[in-house]
């Protein structure tokens, strides 16, 4: 065997290690920013030559050059704030509108549903964690301009574009531009949101939308901070604002055993909705299934959902649904006057729609909602 000196041995080890370190670390080096596909953001302010503050959502991230916000998709570059996900679509599906769930908005129609990477929350039960907790460059994306997106909606014969899956407002600029194009083409735009936006941003965007579904995750600051990484108060404000701006609003509460199923909280939630919105605002209690970081919590007992629904109905809310429980009678819409079923659903498909010009066929009561284009 050829003898090797200690020095030679150590040198060869060092070179090997260098090669391995470079080879393994390179994928984790921050990507060079290529500004061409990025769009200067709205809702930010300059602090100094190197620092900006993003004012889109209550996180109010203070960013220096090269750093990104908590949402992972807004970055400070050369003393300005840019959106990294303008037009960058990572998920693209055609979903029944009931899947959002929007039950009182164009039932039986499809929605062209798009999403990008990132989110301003970090919910432990996020169904779309692969989108929401990813950096934009980690996902395969396609670049679709607002005009192209609206064109594709028309080609697919979907009267609705839904910005959904992860928190859409982090793609604020793109939604804002798309809505303008969509309106001209008679396409509705909806967002499926966590409601975590600063007031000036929501005041600017909400009136342009046709419908909003807000996740009312819990009537508990503790839940929002420990489980979602956010705060309750801005969400409450935006729920109220959406109603004031006459945007069609539906609310969803994903009921998670022992975390947010406290009857007192449910009651308080229902009272808030009745007081700050109105009693006809649809509220969906949906069943939790083990997912993401909460795989050891069992699915919500159906009796818990039924109890939540009873509480909400007792507080005066008229349209309270149970979701993620296909075949349950509370999937259906009942006239709030005569109590008869006017829309029947199987899963997230509408099987029967008996409304006549948005009215109950039995007692002629107007059922609140947007039933036709």
């Amino acid at each position, binding site marked *: 065997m050829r003898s090797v000196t200690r020095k030679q041995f150590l040198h060869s080890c060092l070179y090997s*290690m260098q090669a*391995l370190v470079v080879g393994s670390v390179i994928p984790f080096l921050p990507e060079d920013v290529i500004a061409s596909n990025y769009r200067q953001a709205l809702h930010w302010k300059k602090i100094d030559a190197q620092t900006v503050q993003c004012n889109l959502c209550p996180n109010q991230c203070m960013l220096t050059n090269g750093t990104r916000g908590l949402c992972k998709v807004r970055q400070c570059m050369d003393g300005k704030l840019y959106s990294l996900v303008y037009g960058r679509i990572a998920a693209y599906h055609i979903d029944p509108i009931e899947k959002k769930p929007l039950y009182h908005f164009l039932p039986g129609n499809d929605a062209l549903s798009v999403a990008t990477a990132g989110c301003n929350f970090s919910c432990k039960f996020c169904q779309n964690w*692969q989108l929401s907790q990813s950096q934009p460059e980690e996902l395969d994306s396609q670049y679709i301009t607002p005009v192209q997106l609206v064109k594709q909606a028309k080609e697919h014969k979907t009267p609705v574009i839904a910005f959904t899956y992860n928190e859409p407002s982090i793609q604020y600029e793109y939604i804002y531009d798309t809505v303008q194009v969509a309106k001209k083409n008679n396409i509705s735009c909806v967002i499926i949101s966590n409601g975590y936006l600063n007031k000036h941003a929501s005041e600017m965007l909400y009136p342009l939308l046709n419908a909003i579904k807000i996740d009312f995750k819990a009537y508990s600051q503790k839940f929002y901070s420990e489980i979602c990484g956010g705060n309750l108060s801005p969400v409450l404000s935006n729920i109220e604002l959406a109603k004031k701006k006459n945007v069609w609003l539906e609310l969803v509460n994903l009921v998670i055993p022992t975390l947010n199923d406290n009857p007192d909280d449910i009651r308080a939630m229902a009272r808030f909705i009745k007081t700050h919105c109105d009693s006809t605002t649809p509220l969906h209690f949906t069943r939790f299934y083990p997912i993401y*970081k909460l795989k050891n919590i069992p699915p919500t007992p159906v009796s818990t959902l039924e109890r939540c629904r009873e509480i909400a109905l007792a507080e005066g809310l008229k349209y309270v649904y149970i979701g993620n429980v296909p*075949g349950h009678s509370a999937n259906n819409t009942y006239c709030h006057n005569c109590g008869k079923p006017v829309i029947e659903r199987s899963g997230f498909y509408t099987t029967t729609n008996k409304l006549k010009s948005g009215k109950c066929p039995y007692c002629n009561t107007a059922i609140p909602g947007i039933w036709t284009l």
Partner: protein
Amino acid sequence: MDTMKYNRIFLYISTFFIGVSASIAQAIMIRELLMFFRGNELSIGIIMVLWFAGISAGAAISKKIQAHQFSSIAHNILLHPSLVCISLILLYCTPIFYHTYDSFYPLEVELIIAVVCLLPQCFITGYIFPVLVNACSRLTINNPGTVVFLLESLGAFTGGIAFTFLIIQKINPLGTTLILFIIACIISFTVVQQRIKRLAIVIAMVIVAFAIAYSSYVEKKLLSLSFAANHPGTLLEYRRTPYQMMFVAGVGDTIALYGNNNLYAQFPDDYQVRPIIHALLSTGSVLKDTDILISGDTAFLHYVFAYAGASIDHVTVDPVMWNIVQQKIISIYPDFPSQFLNVYYDDTRNYLKSTGKIYNAVIILPPPPDSIMHNRLYTVEFFKDCKLHLTHNGVCIIQIEGFANIMNPFLRRYVASVINSFRQVFPSSLISAGDTIYCIGFNYNRDTDTSNYLSQYLKNFSASPISKTIRILVPGFSPQEFKMYFQESQQEYLAKQLQSEHIINSDLLPKGYFEYLANSLKQSSSEAERIITNPLLMILLLIIIVILSLWYFNSRGTQHIIFGSIIFVSGFISMAAMIIALIAYQNVFGVLYYKIALCNALFMLGLAIGSASTFTQKDFFITRIMVLITGLVMLFCFTIYNNPTLLYVSIILIAATTGSFIPLLLNRQTNDIQLLASTLDAADHSGALCGALITPFVLLPFFGMYSLVILIVMGFILIVFRLQNYSHI
């Protein structure tokens, strides 16, 4: 009795005891840590790495401290079971202090927990070996290395057998460690001279004897508190079965069943299994007089199918768990027609291999493939077994974890591996898309165009003789629901993703399992996840350990480098082979839980045989390596032919060979034997540490069971090394 003889007896007993204590401690800690870490093989890798790091560190340090002979030995044998007991209590208390509803601890937290629980006791095990060798040498015992190695191995073998066949059924882990402490007290009492120390030992024995009586109560209390800290609902009962640690919790008006802290099922499960009912009915089945095999924890499915007149064979491995499920079924469905249900207590794959029965439908609802044991229900070999038991127009239905809207590369490869494997066996199959993917495989040619299939189902169901019964049993039932799982854009997305992936999940190359594990790690958002899932960084870690080891050996002389290198490689091979053996065992037979100690015991028996073989004058070095290679080949054959004898013999052969090297080299040493013992023990466990690191994170994910070929090649390299170099020493 003269003092010399008395001291020798003490040494033999202490050495034997340390083997027993270390072996039982290892079995207990692996089981308990697996329970807390939700029981996957990465956890085994972490545990083994830390185990050997501790032993290696203890052995390395041992040289520097002067052995004060018997008092030092006495202190260590008292310390060892004490540390195990403390580690167990700390482990049980961890969830109380680290409260999280997260599915699993981040990898960093797992590492810290494992370090705290394992390192102290492993350190003692490593530290004492050179001390014992030196003590034997001073008492002029011939071949001290062989004697110590042999006795320790025999002790470990005895401990493993006793644990597997006796202790595990009778005594809880806390009680076991306390009994070991009492035995250590008795042994120490014989050599401790000072009166006050003797008194202290007696008092400790009395206190511990009382504690043993209450150990079950203490364990129950701690486990209840820790369960409550991290799980919703109320803990109703827990059982330590031979297969797992089972918890039953009441959540609202439902019952949640956990095995090794993993959520298995919730009852009632009416809504969870509706898609399976759709899946079977959509094939045209009328249920009455149908033979159905079901594997998976469900109550409603049994109820509906049995009520509709089907005959159900249910396979479950754990009779204790089934007893609880059955009670729940009866309480929810008092009119359950139990005459239609036959229960077989067996692993599903073993059952299919042993039965000749044929079924109209085989329904598999496996737990997620987060361990190799569960992954075997997702492989092409398993699907073939299912197909063999179908009638000519039979169907096989499985469900797997799917995706919500997009898939990351790990999830994509996992899903692809299972679906490709399924399609290979069932070319005529229907695959849904969504959060849960349902696969329906037909044992005959059938139109599987989705829209035609669903239209036919909608059309035929109303006219079916079973429709009325189903609508009564399943509230709100409508075939329309089934459309939800075949949403066009989701299916198109899935098809496009699968186009680029040709990966298959097989027993020999369980690719699906490792991709699923990587996806689980990604969910944990752990920084350590980046390292674990990056094989280059793991190899870098290996190189660092190798360099550090060589540096350490070099400081002791050329002989230490050469001897240390040989032992390092043999330690690597034996550990890698042992991990592969454990995984191969699970792959073939399923539950390993109560057999871990048996496999370890056989390994220790092999070490004992190996060390006994060094009483001869000649070293037969090359012969020993050929025996090692034979063992590796037999292990590889086991993965193909599934004969357990091959596995057990291969473990013994591999252990015998690697176990003989240390005594062999020690017996050549005439001066400063403790120094060499320290080097060799450290080298052995450093090599084993590297084996534990590289095998689950690099070798198995890339090469599966073919990793054994790499180990065989390493064996031949040892022969070359021996021929080139060793003869000069």
